[in-house]
């Protein structure tokens, strides 16, 4: 046992630069700075977000290749020169506003910064870490509830689809749609709660205690503190300038 207690002989735990708190802070900080930044300043916020995502969550950058994002971006860019400011110059027969073009560009840059920061948080922090984060905020048992929810989710989705098709094939949605929808919800909820009883019995049989902490609590790292100082300073500068 003495040998096993020697930390040098134990497999090294992966080095964590930022904790879940750090990523949460990054998200909140990006939202704050994106709101505070005026006009072209928001470009620096986007650049900083891209650099952070590139360094610590490369997967988040794939967000920029999603069509849903461009469904927001392109219409905003196209409409703002038509709707904001005085239309002073003409392009392909359309009277456009220069002021509107820039306003649209800053709006889109701000939206991209926030969406990217949200993607960094969601793709880097695991479900277990999110649960620990909430448990740290005195929401005891949330980790357990979240685990149960992720486990029952596929079954509930399947029950929902099966019940919906069964009702539809019996002509349920042809008339009295609201009543049929109610029946569908009752079927799904009652079925899920019956399944839930099995989970309760299994948890109680294993003497599960929701007050027991879920693993090690999330510890704030030095990098989190440095990030907090940087974000705070940046927000202060934006507020003053």
């Amino acid at each position: 046992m003495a040998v096993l207690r020697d930390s040098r002989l134990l497999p090294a735990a992966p080095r964590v630069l930022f904790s879940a708190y750090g990523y949460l802070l990054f998200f909140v900080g990006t939202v704050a700075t994106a709101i505070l930044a005026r006009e072209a300043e928001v470009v620096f916020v986007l650049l900083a977000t891209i650099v952070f995502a590139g360094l610590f969550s490369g997967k988040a950058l794939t967000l920029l290749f999603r069509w849903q994002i461009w469904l927001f971006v392109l219409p905003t860019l196209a409409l703002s020169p038509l709707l904001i400011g005085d239309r002073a110059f003409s392009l392909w027969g359309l009277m456009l506003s220069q002021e509107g073009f820039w306003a649209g560009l800053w709006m889109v840059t701000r939206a991209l910064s926030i969406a990217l920061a949200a993607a960094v948080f969601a793709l880097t922090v695991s479900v277990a870490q999110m649960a620990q984060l909430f448990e740290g905020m005195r929401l005891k048992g949330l980790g357990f509830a979240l685990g149960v929810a992720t486990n029952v989710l596929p079954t509930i989705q399947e029950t929902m689809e099966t019940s919906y098709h069964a009702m539809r094939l019996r002509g349920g949605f042809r008339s009295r749609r609201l009543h049929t929808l109610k029946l569908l919800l009752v079927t799904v909820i009652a079925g899920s709660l019956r399944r839930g009883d099995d989970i309760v019995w299994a948890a109680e049989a294993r003497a599960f205690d929701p007050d027991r902490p879920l693993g090690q609590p999330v510890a704030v790292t030095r990098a989190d503190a440095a990030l907090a100082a940087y974000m705070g300073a940046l927000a202060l500068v934006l507020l003053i300038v």
Partner: protein
Amino acid sequence: MRFSVRELVYIAIFGAIWGALELTLGSYLHVIFPPLADTFLVGLIMAFLGVIVALVGRHFVPRTGSVFLIGIITAILKMISIGGVQVGPLVAILAESLLMELGLWVARKPRRWGFVLAGALAIAWNFFHKFIMMYILYGKGIYDVYVGMVKQGVSLLRIDASYALAIIVILFLIRILAGALAGWIGWDLGRVVRGRLAR
């Protein structure tokens, strides 16, 4: 907030049901009505169903905070879904569950009017949500876009600008009524489910 194992499992189940609705019906509706094309219907339908599920959940876990926990679980499930992260629905789910909790707290004990108030408050958020999210995401310039669109629409249709204001008020009232109806249905449905389980 301390919950028993049974209460936590029920919270998880209601969160998963709301989450399943968001992931299946919500994604489907967002594809049919892209967010820019529709600012009314999808949010209203999803909030209506979400409120019913969360309030039925309150029947089974009649304690302060249970609806908010259901909302947190739904938001996290939505966040980790294949569809990717969308800040808008996450904020909406959390805000709706908090407002439901507020309505239920005002009523103190489980009562039908408390459920109706909670539903109305939750879906009323739906009206302000678009404006708040647009302000956060795009800045105040987005209001100029909206005002410009309304002005152009008014001049195109050759109607009085006051009609635009009337339409906005009507849209808000529709949401309040839909929320109250969701609360009413949630109260009834909770009793029906309890009766079904007692059989």
